[in-house]
Protein backbone atom coordinates (compact mmCIF):
# COMPACT_ATOMS: atom_id res chain seq x y z
CA UNK A 1 0.00 0.00 0.00
CA UNK A 2 1.51 3.34 -0.97
CA UNK A 3 1.43 6.19 1.47
CA UNK A 4 -1.38 8.02 -0.28
CA UNK A 5 -3.85 5.16 0.02
CA UNK A 6 -4.95 5.20 3.65
CA UNK A 7 -8.67 5.87 3.62
CA UNK A 8 -8.89 6.62 7.32
CA UNK A 9 -6.28 8.57 9.27
CA UNK A 10 -5.88 9.45 12.92
CA UNK A 11 -6.76 12.99 14.00
CA UNK A 12 -4.06 15.46 12.87
CA UNK A 13 -1.81 12.81 11.32
CA UNK A 14 -0.84 13.23 7.66
CA UNK A 15 -0.58 10.38 5.11
CA UNK A 16 3.22 10.39 5.06
CA UNK A 17 3.57 10.40 8.82
CA UNK A 18 1.04 7.60 9.16
CA UNK A 19 2.82 5.58 6.50
CA UNK A 20 6.08 5.86 8.41
CA UNK A 21 4.36 4.57 11.52
CA UNK A 22 2.85 1.64 9.57
CA UNK A 23 6.26 0.73 8.16
CA UNK A 24 7.72 0.71 11.68
CA UNK A 25 4.85 -1.48 12.90
CA UNK A 26 5.62 -3.91 10.07
CA UNK A 27 9.28 -4.04 11.01
CA UNK A 28 8.39 -4.67 14.65
CA UNK A 29 5.48 -7.09 14.29
CA UNK A 30 5.77 -8.59 10.80
CA UNK A 31 3.46 -7.87 7.86
CA UNK A 32 0.79 -10.33 8.97
CA UNK A 33 0.24 -8.43 12.21
CA UNK A 34 -0.31 -5.02 10.65
CA UNK A 35 -3.76 -4.73 9.12
CA UNK A 36 -4.62 -1.84 6.83
CA UNK A 37 -6.88 -3.39 4.18
CA UNK A 38 -10.57 -2.58 4.39
CA UNK A 39 -11.58 -6.24 4.62
CA UNK A 40 -9.15 -6.85 7.47
CA UNK A 41 -10.45 -3.85 9.39
CA UNK A 42 -14.14 -4.65 8.92
CA UNK A 43 -14.46 -6.78 12.08
CA UNK A 44 -13.10 -3.91 14.19
CA UNK A 45 -15.77 -1.56 12.89
CA UNK A 46 -18.86 -3.63 13.80
CA UNK A 47 -20.84 -1.56 16.29
CA UNK A 48 -24.25 -1.70 17.97
CA UNK A 49 -24.48 2.01 18.76
CA UNK A 50 -26.61 4.59 16.94
CA UNK A 51 -23.52 6.22 15.40
CA UNK A 52 -22.47 5.92 11.79
CA UNK A 53 -19.94 3.11 11.33
CA UNK A 54 -17.55 5.70 9.88
CA UNK A 55 -17.38 7.55 13.20
CA UNK A 56 -15.75 4.47 14.73
CA UNK A 57 -13.62 3.30 11.81
CA UNK A 58 -10.03 2.43 12.73
CA UNK A 59 -7.18 3.54 10.49
CA UNK A 60 -5.30 0.28 11.08
CA UNK A 61 -5.09 -2.63 13.48
CA UNK A 62 -1.95 -4.21 14.90
CA UNK A 63 -1.68 -7.46 16.82
CA UNK A 64 1.02 -8.04 19.41
CA UNK A 65 2.04 -11.26 21.11
CA UNK A 66 4.56 -10.11 23.73
CA UNK A 67 4.95 -7.35 26.29
CA UNK A 68 8.05 -6.18 24.42
CA UNK A 69 5.98 -5.78 21.26
CA UNK A 70 3.38 -3.76 23.16
CA UNK A 71 6.21 -1.52 24.40
CA UNK A 72 7.41 -1.19 20.82
CA UNK A 73 3.94 -0.23 19.59
CA UNK A 74 3.65 2.43 22.28
CA UNK A 75 7.06 3.83 21.31
CA UNK A 76 6.06 4.12 17.63
CA UNK A 77 2.72 5.69 18.58
CA UNK A 78 4.57 8.33 20.61
CA UNK A 79 7.02 9.04 17.81
CA UNK A 80 4.22 9.69 15.30
CA UNK A 81 1.45 10.85 17.65
CA UNK A 82 -0.74 7.96 16.55
CA UNK A 83 -3.51 7.24 19.07
CA UNK A 84 -4.11 3.58 19.92
CA UNK A 85 -7.30 1.91 21.12
CA UNK A 86 -6.40 -1.34 22.88
CA UNK A 87 -8.70 -4.35 22.99
CA UNK A 88 -8.22 -7.71 24.69
CA UNK A 89 -10.87 -10.04 23.28
CA UNK A 90 -12.87 -7.13 21.88
CA UNK A 91 -16.22 -8.45 23.05
CA UNK A 92 -17.48 -5.35 24.84
CA UNK A 93 -20.98 -5.64 23.36
CA UNK A 94 -23.32 -2.80 24.19
CA UNK A 95 -20.37 -0.71 25.32
CA UNK A 96 -18.67 -0.14 21.98
CA UNK A 97 -17.72 -3.70 20.91
CA UNK A 98 -14.22 -3.74 19.40
CA UNK A 99 -14.37 -0.38 17.67
CA UNK A 100 -12.21 2.58 18.63
CA UNK A 101 -13.62 5.52 20.55
CA UNK A 102 -13.43 7.67 17.46
CA UNK A 103 -12.47 7.52 13.83
CA UNK A 104 -8.83 7.10 12.96
CA UNK A 105 -7.46 5.53 16.12
CA UNK A 106 -5.47 2.38 15.43
CA UNK A 107 -6.52 -0.79 17.18
CA UNK A 108 -3.98 -2.63 19.29
CA UNK A 109 -5.49 -6.11 19.40
CA UNK A 110 -4.12 -8.33 22.17
CA UNK A 111 -6.30 -11.38 21.49
CA UNK A 112 -3.26 -13.41 20.40
CA UNK A 113 -1.69 -12.90 23.83
CA UNK A 114 -3.62 -15.79 25.32
CA UNK A 115 -1.38 -17.55 27.79
CA UNK A 116 -2.79 -18.79 31.05
CA UNK A 117 0.37 -18.02 32.98
CA UNK A 118 -0.57 -19.83 36.11
CA UNK A 119 -3.50 -21.17 38.03
CA UNK A 120 -3.02 -22.09 41.67
CA UNK A 121 -5.67 -24.54 42.79
CA UNK A 122 -4.78 -24.33 46.45
CA UNK A 123 -4.86 -20.57 46.70
CA UNK A 124 -7.59 -20.12 44.09
CA UNK A 125 -5.67 -17.60 41.98
CA UNK A 126 -4.95 -17.11 38.30
CA UNK A 127 -2.68 -14.92 36.21
CA UNK A 128 -3.68 -14.47 32.58
CA UNK A 129 -2.90 -12.50 29.45
CA UNK A 130 -5.46 -10.25 27.69
CA UNK A 131 -6.55 -12.74 25.02
CA UNK A 132 -7.58 -15.54 27.39
CA UNK A 133 -11.32 -16.14 27.18
CA UNK A 134 -13.45 -17.48 30.01
CA UNK A 135 -14.17 -20.50 27.78
CA UNK A 136 -10.46 -21.19 27.41
CA UNK A 137 -9.90 -20.87 31.15
CA UNK A 138 -12.95 -23.03 31.87
CA UNK A 139 -11.64 -25.74 29.52
CA UNK A 140 -8.23 -25.53 31.13
CA UNK A 141 -9.75 -25.98 34.58
CA UNK A 142 -11.88 -28.91 33.39
CA UNK A 143 -9.09 -30.62 31.49
CA UNK A 144 -6.80 -30.43 34.47
CA UNK A 145 -9.49 -31.35 36.96
CA UNK A 146 -8.93 -28.27 39.08
CA UNK A 147 -11.43 -27.69 41.90
CA UNK A 148 -12.13 -24.11 40.81
CA UNK A 149 -15.11 -22.12 39.60
CA UNK A 150 -15.21 -19.06 37.38
CA UNK A 151 -17.33 -15.94 37.58
CA UNK A 152 -18.14 -14.08 34.37
CA UNK A 153 -20.46 -11.80 32.48
CA UNK A 154 -23.00 -13.28 30.06
CA UNK A 155 -20.80 -13.24 26.90
CA UNK A 156 -18.62 -15.68 28.81
CA UNK A 157 -17.67 -18.06 26.04
CA UNK A 158 -16.01 -15.36 23.96
CA UNK A 159 -15.20 -12.59 26.46
CA UNK A 160 -12.29 -12.73 28.87
CA UNK A 161 -11.37 -11.99 32.48
CA UNK A 162 -8.79 -9.31 31.76
CA UNK A 163 -10.98 -7.09 29.58
CA UNK A 164 -14.07 -7.58 31.68
CA UNK A 165 -12.28 -6.77 34.92
CA UNK A 166 -10.47 -3.75 33.47
CA UNK A 167 -13.88 -2.38 32.47
CA UNK A 168 -15.23 -3.26 35.94
CA UNK A 169 -17.76 -5.75 34.67
CA UNK A 170 -19.81 -7.98 36.92
CA UNK A 171 -20.86 -11.61 37.07
CA UNK A 172 -23.39 -13.78 38.85
CA UNK A 173 -21.50 -15.85 41.43
CA UNK A 174 -20.31 -15.03 44.96
CA UNK A 175 -17.26 -13.55 43.18
CA UNK A 176 -19.50 -11.50 40.90
CA UNK A 177 -17.93 -8.13 41.69
CA UNK A 178 -14.97 -8.84 39.46
CA UNK A 179 -12.78 -5.87 40.24
CA UNK A 180 -13.02 -6.78 43.92
CA UNK A 181 -11.44 -10.14 43.03
CA UNK A 182 -8.65 -8.60 40.97
CA UNK A 183 -5.18 -9.12 42.47
CA UNK A 184 -2.21 -7.77 40.56
CA UNK A 185 -1.90 -6.04 37.21
CA UNK A 186 0.96 -5.60 34.80
CA UNK A 187 0.73 -2.51 32.62
CA UNK A 188 2.73 -0.99 29.82
CA UNK A 189 2.75 2.75 30.46
CA UNK A 190 2.79 5.42 27.77
CA UNK A 191 6.51 6.00 28.40
CA UNK A 192 7.12 2.34 27.59
CA UNK A 193 7.89 1.23 31.14
CA UNK A 194 6.28 -1.91 32.55
CA UNK A 195 4.55 -1.30 35.88
CA UNK A 196 3.21 -3.96 38.20
CA UNK A 197 0.68 -3.10 40.89
CA UNK A 198 0.55 -4.54 44.42
CA UNK A 199 3.42 -6.89 45.26
CA UNK A 200 4.40 -7.24 41.60
CA UNK A 201 7.37 -4.92 41.70
CA UNK A 202 9.31 -6.94 44.27
CA UNK A 203 12.01 -9.12 42.74
CA UNK A 204 11.29 -12.78 43.53
CA UNK A 205 7.97 -12.06 45.23
CA UNK A 206 5.33 -14.78 45.19
CA UNK A 207 2.47 -12.86 46.84
CA UNK A 208 1.46 -10.82 43.77
CA UNK A 209 -1.79 -12.77 43.31
CA UNK A 210 -2.71 -13.00 46.99
CA UNK A 211 -2.15 -9.54 48.48
CA UNK A 212 -3.70 -6.60 46.73
CA UNK A 213 -2.29 -3.58 48.44
CA UNK A 214 1.49 -3.82 48.22
CA UNK A 215 3.20 -0.76 49.66
CA UNK A 216 2.46 2.92 49.36
CA UNK A 217 -0.22 4.10 46.96
CA UNK A 218 -2.39 1.27 45.63
CA UNK A 219 -3.13 2.34 42.09
CA UNK A 220 -4.97 -0.60 40.52
CA UNK A 221 -8.31 1.18 40.34
CA UNK A 222 -6.76 4.07 38.47
CA UNK A 223 -6.11 1.84 35.48
CA UNK A 224 -9.66 0.47 35.18
CA UNK A 225 -12.09 2.17 32.77
CA UNK A 226 -9.12 4.42 32.04
CA UNK A 227 -6.36 5.15 29.53
CA UNK A 228 -3.23 5.43 31.66
CA UNK A 229 -1.71 2.09 30.74
CA UNK A 230 -2.15 -1.07 28.67
CA UNK A 231 -2.85 -4.09 30.85
CA UNK A 232 -0.79 -7.08 29.71
CA UNK A 233 -1.34 -9.42 32.68
CA UNK A 234 -4.11 -9.67 35.24
CA UNK A 235 -4.23 -11.67 38.44
CA UNK A 236 -7.52 -12.57 40.08
CA UNK A 237 -9.13 -14.87 42.57
CA UNK A 238 -11.27 -17.90 41.81
CA UNK A 239 -13.69 -19.66 44.07
CA UNK A 240 -13.07 -23.22 45.13
CA UNK A 241 -15.88 -25.17 43.58
CA UNK A 242 -18.23 -26.18 46.41
CA UNK A 243 -19.65 -29.70 46.76
CA UNK A 244 -23.17 -28.34 46.25
CA UNK A 245 -24.47 -25.49 44.11
CA UNK A 246 -28.21 -25.04 44.35
CA UNK A 247 -29.60 -22.59 41.81
CA UNK A 248 -33.20 -21.47 42.19
CA UNK A 249 -35.63 -18.90 40.87
CA UNK A 250 -38.39 -16.93 42.56
CA UNK A 251 -41.12 -15.61 40.27
CA UNK A 252 -43.22 -12.58 41.18
CA UNK A 253 -46.48 -11.85 39.41
CA UNK A 254 -46.67 -8.06 39.36
CA UNK A 255 -44.27 -5.40 38.16
CA UNK A 256 -45.20 -3.44 41.29
CA UNK A 257 -43.59 -6.19 43.39
CA UNK A 258 -40.08 -4.87 42.72
CA UNK A 259 -39.77 -2.84 45.94
CA UNK A 260 -40.80 -5.76 48.11
CA UNK A 261 -38.45 -8.11 46.27
CA UNK A 262 -35.49 -5.89 46.98
CA UNK A 263 -36.41 -5.48 50.65
CA UNK A 264 -36.71 -9.27 50.88
CA UNK A 265 -33.37 -9.93 49.18
CA UNK A 266 -31.20 -7.26 50.84
CA UNK A 267 -30.74 -8.81 54.30
CA UNK A 268 -30.15 -12.23 52.75
CA UNK A 269 -27.46 -10.75 50.49
CA UNK A 270 -25.73 -8.52 53.03
CA UNK A 271 -25.53 -11.37 55.50
CA UNK A 272 -24.34 -13.79 52.82
CA UNK A 273 -27.19 -16.26 53.24
CA UNK A 274 -27.48 -15.82 49.47
CA UNK A 275 -23.84 -15.21 48.57
CA UNK A 276 -24.02 -14.62 44.83
CA UNK A 277 -24.79 -11.56 42.75
CA UNK A 278 -28.53 -12.10 42.51
CA UNK A 279 -30.44 -11.12 39.40
CA UNK A 280 -33.93 -9.65 39.30
CA UNK A 281 -34.85 -9.96 35.62
CA UNK A 282 -37.79 -8.22 34.00
CA UNK A 283 -40.29 -10.12 31.88
CA UNK A 284 -38.86 -9.16 28.49
CA UNK A 285 -35.32 -10.14 29.44
CA UNK A 286 -36.70 -13.45 30.54
CA UNK A 287 -38.84 -13.90 27.44
CA UNK A 288 -36.18 -13.01 24.89
CA UNK A 289 -33.62 -15.36 26.43
CA UNK A 290 -36.30 -18.07 26.27
CA UNK A 291 -36.51 -17.54 22.50
CA UNK A 292 -39.50 -15.17 22.28
CA UNK A 293 -39.36 -12.48 19.62
CA UNK A 294 -41.46 -9.35 19.57
CA UNK A 295 -42.68 -10.28 16.11
CA UNK A 296 -44.29 -13.41 17.60
CA UNK A 297 -46.81 -11.10 19.24
CA UNK A 298 -47.11 -7.88 17.28
CA UNK A 299 -46.03 -6.17 14.09
CA UNK A 300 -47.03 -2.71 15.36
CA UNK A 301 -44.08 -0.35 15.70
CA UNK A 302 -43.31 1.46 18.95
CA UNK A 303 -43.42 0.45 22.59
CA UNK A 304 -44.93 -2.94 23.28
CA UNK A 305 -48.26 -2.54 25.12
CA UNK A 306 -48.51 -3.81 28.70
CA UNK A 307 -51.30 -6.16 27.68
CA UNK A 308 -48.88 -8.00 25.41
CA UNK A 309 -46.27 -8.17 28.15
CA UNK A 310 -48.86 -9.78 30.39
CA UNK A 311 -49.80 -12.20 27.63
CA UNK A 312 -46.17 -13.25 27.15
CA UNK A 313 -45.81 -13.68 30.90
CA UNK A 314 -48.86 -15.93 30.95
CA UNK A 315 -48.00 -17.91 27.80
CA UNK A 316 -44.42 -18.61 28.81
CA UNK A 317 -45.03 -19.09 32.54
CA UNK A 318 -42.78 -16.22 33.53
CA UNK A 319 -42.85 -13.72 36.33
CA UNK A 320 -43.12 -9.97 35.89
CA UNK A 321 -39.89 -10.17 37.87
CA UNK A 322 -37.76 -13.29 37.98
CA UNK A 323 -35.22 -13.56 40.76
CA UNK A 324 -32.25 -15.89 40.28
CA UNK A 325 -30.10 -16.92 43.22
CA UNK A 326 -27.91 -19.83 44.22
CA UNK A 327 -26.65 -21.42 47.41
CA UNK A 328 -23.14 -22.82 47.68
CA UNK A 329 -21.37 -25.09 50.14
CA UNK A 330 -21.65 -28.46 51.79
CA UNK A 331 -25.07 -30.17 51.76
CA UNK A 332 -25.53 -29.16 55.39
CA UNK A 333 -24.70 -25.49 54.76
CA UNK A 334 -26.98 -25.35 51.75
CA UNK A 335 -29.83 -26.92 53.68
CA UNK A 336 -29.55 -24.38 56.51
CA UNK A 337 -29.57 -21.45 54.08
CA UNK A 338 -32.37 -22.94 52.00
CA UNK A 339 -34.53 -23.08 55.11
CA UNK A 340 -33.74 -19.45 55.89
CA UNK A 341 -34.62 -18.37 52.33
CA UNK A 342 -37.85 -20.33 52.14
CA UNK A 343 -38.82 -19.13 55.62
CA UNK A 344 -38.23 -15.50 54.65
CA UNK A 345 -40.26 -15.98 51.47
CA UNK A 346 -43.12 -17.46 53.46
CA UNK A 347 -43.08 -14.36 55.64
CA UNK A 348 -43.19 -12.16 52.56
CA UNK A 349 -46.30 -14.00 51.47
CA UNK A 350 -45.72 -13.81 47.73
CA UNK A 351 -43.33 -15.21 45.16
CA UNK A 352 -43.19 -18.68 43.69
CA UNK A 353 -39.97 -20.61 44.17
CA UNK A 354 -38.69 -22.86 41.36
CA UNK A 355 -35.85 -25.33 41.86
CA UNK A 356 -33.59 -26.80 39.20
CA UNK A 357 -35.54 -30.03 39.29
CA UNK A 358 -38.82 -28.17 38.78
CA UNK A 359 -37.37 -26.12 35.91
CA UNK A 360 -36.50 -29.40 34.21
CA UNK A 361 -33.83 -28.19 31.82
CA UNK A 362 -35.90 -25.36 30.36
CA UNK A 363 -34.59 -21.95 29.37
CA UNK A 364 -33.90 -19.37 30.69
CA UNK A 365 -33.44 -21.21 34.02
CA UNK A 366 -30.71 -23.41 32.54
CA UNK A 367 -28.51 -20.58 31.31
CA UNK A 368 -29.02 -18.66 34.55
CA UNK A 369 -27.87 -21.72 36.49
CA UNK A 370 -24.81 -21.89 34.23
CA UNK A 371 -23.97 -18.25 34.88
CA UNK A 372 -24.29 -18.80 38.62
CA UNK A 373 -22.07 -21.88 38.54
CA UNK A 374 -19.46 -20.66 36.07
CA UNK A 375 -20.28 -22.65 32.91
CA UNK A 376 -19.74 -20.55 29.75
CA UNK A 377 -22.61 -19.99 27.31
CA UNK A 378 -24.01 -17.26 25.05
CA UNK A 379 -27.71 -17.73 25.70
CA UNK A 380 -28.22 -14.14 26.75
CA UNK A 381 -27.71 -13.00 23.17
CA UNK A 382 -31.38 -13.89 22.82
CA UNK A 383 -31.93 -10.31 23.96
CA UNK A 384 -30.85 -9.16 20.52
CA UNK A 385 -33.70 -11.05 18.89
CA UNK A 386 -36.40 -9.18 20.78
CA UNK A 387 -36.45 -6.45 18.15
CA UNK A 388 -33.65 -7.70 15.91
CA UNK A 389 -31.53 -5.43 13.76
CA UNK A 390 -28.42 -5.40 15.90
CA UNK A 391 -28.90 -2.24 17.97
CA UNK A 392 -27.95 -2.46 21.64
CA UNK A 393 -26.75 0.00 24.26
CA UNK A 394 -26.43 -0.73 27.94
CA UNK A 395 -27.92 1.92 30.15
CA UNK A 396 -26.60 0.93 33.57
CA UNK A 397 -27.40 3.26 36.45
CA UNK A 398 -26.27 2.25 39.91
CA UNK A 399 -28.78 2.25 42.72
CA UNK A 400 -28.92 1.50 46.41
CA UNK A 401 -30.26 -1.94 47.24
CA UNK A 402 -33.42 -0.33 48.52
CA UNK A 403 -36.92 -1.10 47.31
CA UNK A 404 -38.11 2.47 46.93
CA UNK A 405 -35.07 3.32 44.79
CA UNK A 406 -35.60 0.43 42.39
CA UNK A 407 -39.24 1.30 42.05
CA UNK A 408 -38.34 4.87 41.10
CA UNK A 409 -35.63 3.87 38.64
CA UNK A 410 -37.73 1.22 36.98
CA UNK A 411 -40.73 3.52 36.52
CA UNK A 412 -38.59 6.34 35.15
CA UNK A 413 -36.67 4.12 32.74
CA UNK A 414 -39.80 2.47 31.42
CA UNK A 415 -41.54 5.81 30.91
CA UNK A 416 -38.64 7.25 28.91
CA UNK A 417 -38.09 4.12 26.83
CA UNK A 418 -41.79 3.83 25.99
CA UNK A 419 -41.97 7.51 25.09
CA UNK A 420 -39.35 6.84 22.41
CA UNK A 421 -41.18 3.75 21.17
CA UNK A 422 -38.81 1.28 22.84
CA UNK A 423 -39.22 -1.31 25.58
CA UNK A 424 -37.90 -1.77 29.08
CA UNK A 425 -35.67 -4.84 28.89
CA UNK A 426 -33.78 -4.77 32.14
CA UNK A 427 -32.49 -6.54 35.18
CA UNK A 428 -31.09 -5.57 38.55
CA UNK A 429 -27.84 -7.29 39.55
CA UNK A 430 -27.72 -7.21 43.33
CA UNK A 431 -24.25 -6.63 44.74
CA UNK A 432 -23.79 -6.38 48.47
CA UNK A 433 -25.45 -3.04 49.07
CA UNK A 434 -25.78 -1.77 45.55
CA UNK A 435 -27.58 -2.71 42.42
CA UNK A 436 -26.34 -2.50 38.88
CA UNK A 437 -29.57 -1.66 37.11
CA UNK A 438 -28.72 -2.84 33.60
CA UNK A 439 -31.15 -1.97 30.84
CA UNK A 440 -30.56 -3.07 27.28
CA UNK A 441 -31.72 -0.27 25.00
CA UNK A 442 -32.59 -2.56 22.10
CA UNK A 443 -33.47 -1.12 18.72
CA UNK A 444 -33.39 -2.01 15.05
CA UNK A 445 -30.14 -0.50 13.79
CA UNK A 446 -31.14 -1.27 10.20
CA UNK A 447 -33.98 1.25 10.60
CA UNK A 448 -32.59 4.82 10.52
CA UNK A 449 -35.68 6.35 12.13
CA UNK A 450 -35.63 3.90 15.04
CA UNK A 451 -31.88 4.39 15.39
CA UNK A 452 -32.43 8.13 15.77
CA UNK A 453 -35.07 7.48 18.41
CA UNK A 454 -32.76 5.17 20.31
CA UNK A 455 -30.10 7.86 20.37
CA UNK A 456 -32.56 10.48 21.65
CA UNK A 457 -33.83 7.97 24.19
CA UNK A 458 -30.37 7.26 25.56
CA UNK A 459 -29.64 10.96 25.89
CA UNK A 460 -32.88 11.49 27.76
CA UNK A 461 -32.23 8.52 30.05
CA UNK A 462 -28.88 10.02 31.01
CA UNK A 463 -30.34 13.50 31.51
CA UNK A 464 -33.38 12.51 33.53
CA UNK A 465 -31.53 10.05 35.73
CA UNK A 466 -28.83 12.62 36.41
CA UNK A 467 -31.44 15.20 37.48
CA UNK A 468 -32.46 12.75 40.20
CA UNK A 469 -28.92 12.01 41.33
CA UNK A 470 -28.36 8.76 39.43
CA UNK A 471 -25.39 7.97 37.21
CA UNK A 472 -24.27 4.99 35.22
CA UNK A 473 -21.27 2.82 36.09
CA UNK A 474 -20.17 2.19 32.53
CA UNK A 475 -21.23 3.33 29.08
CA UNK A 476 -20.58 2.85 25.37
CA UNK A 477 -17.98 4.92 23.56
CA UNK A 478 -20.54 7.29 22.00
CA UNK A 479 -21.59 8.61 25.40
CA UNK A 480 -18.37 8.46 27.41
CA UNK A 481 -17.76 12.19 27.39
CA UNK A 482 -21.36 12.91 28.32
CA UNK A 483 -21.25 10.54 31.30
CA UNK A 484 -17.92 11.96 32.49
CA UNK A 485 -19.75 15.29 32.89
CA UNK A 486 -22.19 13.69 35.33
CA UNK A 487 -19.37 13.03 37.76
CA UNK A 488 -18.34 16.68 38.03
CA UNK A 489 -15.47 18.97 37.00
CA UNK A 490 -13.05 18.20 39.85
CA UNK A 491 -12.86 14.53 38.93
CA UNK A 492 -12.32 15.42 35.28
CA UNK A 493 -9.55 17.90 36.05
CA UNK A 494 -7.77 15.35 38.23
CA UNK A 495 -8.10 12.68 35.53
CA UNK A 496 -6.68 15.01 32.89
CA UNK A 497 -3.87 16.09 35.21
CA UNK A 498 -2.91 12.43 35.51
CA UNK A 499 -3.23 12.01 31.75
CA UNK A 500 -0.89 14.94 31.12
CA UNK A 501 1.67 13.51 33.49
CA UNK A 502 1.50 9.89 32.30
CA UNK A 503 0.66 10.25 28.62
CA UNK A 504 1.54 13.77 27.46
CA UNK A 505 1.18 12.81 23.78
CA UNK A 506 -2.36 11.57 24.43
CA UNK A 507 -1.76 8.32 22.57
CA UNK A 508 -3.45 5.75 24.84
CA UNK A 509 -7.15 5.39 24.06
CA UNK A 510 -8.07 9.09 23.94
CA UNK A 511 -11.75 9.46 24.74
CA UNK A 512 -11.95 6.49 27.10
CA UNK A 513 -14.26 7.54 29.97
CA UNK A 514 -14.12 11.08 28.58
CA UNK A 515 -10.35 11.44 29.12
CA UNK A 516 -8.82 13.14 26.09
CA UNK A 517 -6.22 15.91 26.26
CA UNK A 518 -7.17 17.16 22.77
CA UNK A 519 -10.75 17.81 23.80
CA UNK A 520 -10.65 18.81 27.44
CA UNK A 521 -10.45 22.51 28.20
CA UNK A 522 -12.06 22.91 31.61
CA UNK A 523 -8.84 23.57 33.52
Amino acid at each position, binding site marked *: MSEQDYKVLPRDVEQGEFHQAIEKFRALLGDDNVLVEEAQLKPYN*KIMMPSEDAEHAPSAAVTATTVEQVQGVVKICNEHKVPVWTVSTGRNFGYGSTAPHHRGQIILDLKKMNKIIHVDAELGTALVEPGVTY*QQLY*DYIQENNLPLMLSFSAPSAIAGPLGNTMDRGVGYTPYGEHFLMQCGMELVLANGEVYRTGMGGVEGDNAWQVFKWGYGPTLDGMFTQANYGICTKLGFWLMHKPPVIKPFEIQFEEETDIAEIVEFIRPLRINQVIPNSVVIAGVLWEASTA*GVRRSDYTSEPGATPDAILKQIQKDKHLGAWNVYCALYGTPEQVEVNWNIVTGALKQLGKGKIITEEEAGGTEPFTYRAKLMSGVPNLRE*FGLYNWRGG*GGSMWFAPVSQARGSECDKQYALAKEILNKHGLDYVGEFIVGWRDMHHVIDVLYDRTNPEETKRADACFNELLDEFEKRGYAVYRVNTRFMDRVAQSYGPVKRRLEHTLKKALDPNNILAPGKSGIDLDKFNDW
Partner: protein
Amino acid sequence: MSVIRSKARSLAIAALVLPSALVAFSASASGDGQWKGGEHVYQKVCGHCHDTNGDIGPVLAGRGLPPAYITAIVRQGFRAMPAFPASFIDDASLQQVGEYIQQLPAPAKE
Protein backbone atom coordinates in the same frame (compact mmCIF):
# COMPACT_ATOMS: atom_id res chain seq x y z
CA MET B 1 3.86 -22.49 28.80
CA SER B 2 5.04 -21.68 32.26
CA VAL B 3 5.02 -24.12 35.12
CA ILE B 4 1.69 -24.36 36.84
CA ARG B 5 1.54 -24.67 40.58
CA SER B 6 -1.40 -26.92 41.15
CA LYS B 7 -0.53 -29.44 43.78
CA ALA B 8 -3.74 -29.60 45.75
CA ARG B 9 -4.06 -30.98 49.24
CA SER B 10 -7.28 -31.49 51.08
CA LEU B 11 -8.56 -28.42 52.84
CA ALA B 12 -9.04 -28.47 56.54
CA ILE B 13 -12.76 -28.65 55.98
CA ALA B 14 -13.33 -32.34 55.44
CA ALA B 15 -16.35 -31.80 53.24
CA LEU B 16 -14.43 -29.75 50.71
CA VAL B 17 -12.19 -32.48 49.40
CA LEU B 18 -9.87 -31.46 46.59
CA PRO B 19 -8.34 -33.93 44.18
CA SER B 20 -4.93 -34.84 45.48
CA ALA B 21 -1.52 -34.55 43.89
CA LEU B 22 -2.33 -32.78 40.65
CA VAL B 23 0.93 -32.68 38.76
CA ALA B 24 2.14 -29.88 36.56
CA PHE B 25 0.61 -30.35 33.12
CA SER B 26 1.54 -29.53 29.59
CA ALA B 27 -0.56 -27.90 26.89
CA SER B 28 -4.02 -29.40 26.93
CA ALA B 29 -6.94 -29.87 24.56
CA SER B 30 -8.58 -26.44 24.69
CA GLY B 31 -6.93 -24.69 27.57
CA ASP B 32 -3.92 -23.88 25.45
CA GLY B 33 -5.94 -21.42 23.40
CA GLN B 34 -5.13 -23.00 20.02
CA TRP B 35 -7.82 -23.90 17.48
CA LYS B 36 -7.78 -27.56 16.51
CA GLY B 37 -9.98 -27.69 13.46
CA GLY B 38 -13.49 -26.80 12.34
CA GLU B 39 -15.42 -28.87 14.82
CA HIS B 40 -13.44 -27.39 17.70
CA VAL B 41 -14.15 -23.80 16.65
CA TYR B 42 -17.80 -24.63 16.13
CA GLN B 43 -18.15 -26.18 19.59
CA LYS B 44 -16.35 -23.41 21.44
CA VAL B 45 -17.75 -20.39 19.59
CA CYS B 46 -20.45 -20.82 16.92
CA GLY B 47 -22.46 -23.59 18.57
CA HIS B 48 -23.20 -21.51 21.65
CA CYS B 49 -25.66 -19.49 19.54
CA HIS B 50 -26.29 -21.64 16.48
CA ASP B 51 -27.03 -24.92 18.28
CA THR B 52 -30.08 -23.58 20.10
CA ASN B 53 -32.87 -24.72 17.75
CA GLY B 54 -32.95 -21.23 16.33
CA ASP B 55 -33.65 -19.58 19.69
CA ILE B 56 -30.50 -17.43 19.61
CA GLY B 57 -28.75 -17.69 16.23
CA PRO B 58 -30.22 -19.35 13.15
CA VAL B 59 -29.55 -23.06 12.65
CA LEU B 60 -26.63 -23.44 10.21
CA ALA B 61 -26.50 -27.22 10.02
CA GLY B 62 -28.01 -29.02 7.05
CA ARG B 63 -28.15 -25.96 4.79
CA GLY B 64 -24.98 -26.62 2.82
CA LEU B 65 -23.81 -23.05 3.41
CA PRO B 66 -20.59 -22.40 1.51
CA PRO B 67 -17.46 -21.64 3.57
CA ALA B 68 -17.03 -18.32 1.73
CA TYR B 69 -20.42 -17.18 3.04
CA ILE B 70 -19.57 -18.23 6.59
CA THR B 71 -16.26 -16.41 6.32
CA ALA B 72 -17.89 -13.20 5.14
CA ILE B 73 -20.48 -13.17 7.93
CA VAL B 74 -17.93 -14.03 10.63
CA ARG B 75 -15.55 -11.30 9.51
CA GLN B 76 -18.19 -8.57 9.02
CA GLY B 77 -20.80 -9.57 11.55
CA PHE B 78 -24.47 -9.40 10.64
CA ARG B 79 -27.03 -7.45 12.66
CA ALA B 80 -26.66 -8.87 16.18
CA MET B 81 -24.06 -11.40 15.13
CA PRO B 82 -20.69 -10.12 16.28
CA ALA B 83 -17.73 -9.86 13.94
CA PHE B 84 -14.62 -11.88 14.68
CA PRO B 85 -11.23 -10.62 13.50
CA ALA B 86 -8.43 -12.95 12.40
CA SER B 87 -6.81 -12.59 15.82
CA PHE B 88 -9.81 -14.42 17.29
CA ILE B 89 -10.37 -17.01 14.55
CA ASP B 90 -7.48 -17.18 12.07
CA ASP B 91 -8.16 -17.52 8.33
CA ALA B 92 -7.29 -21.23 8.20
CA SER B 93 -9.48 -22.14 11.18
CA LEU B 94 -12.30 -20.06 9.77
CA GLN B 95 -12.09 -21.94 6.47
CA GLN B 96 -12.14 -25.21 8.44
CA VAL B 97 -15.20 -24.22 10.45
CA GLY B 98 -16.90 -23.17 7.22
CA GLU B 99 -16.22 -26.59 5.73
CA TYR B 100 -17.39 -28.26 8.93
CA ILE B 101 -20.68 -26.32 8.90
CA GLN B 102 -21.21 -27.03 5.21
CA GLN B 103 -21.22 -30.78 5.80
CA LEU B 104 -23.25 -30.80 9.02
CA PRO B 105 -26.48 -32.78 8.62
CA ALA B 106 -29.76 -31.09 9.44
CA PRO B 107 -30.64 -31.49 13.11
CA ALA B 108 -33.15 -34.19 13.84
CA LYS B 109 -36.69 -32.89 14.32
CA GLU B 110 -37.61 -33.01 17.98
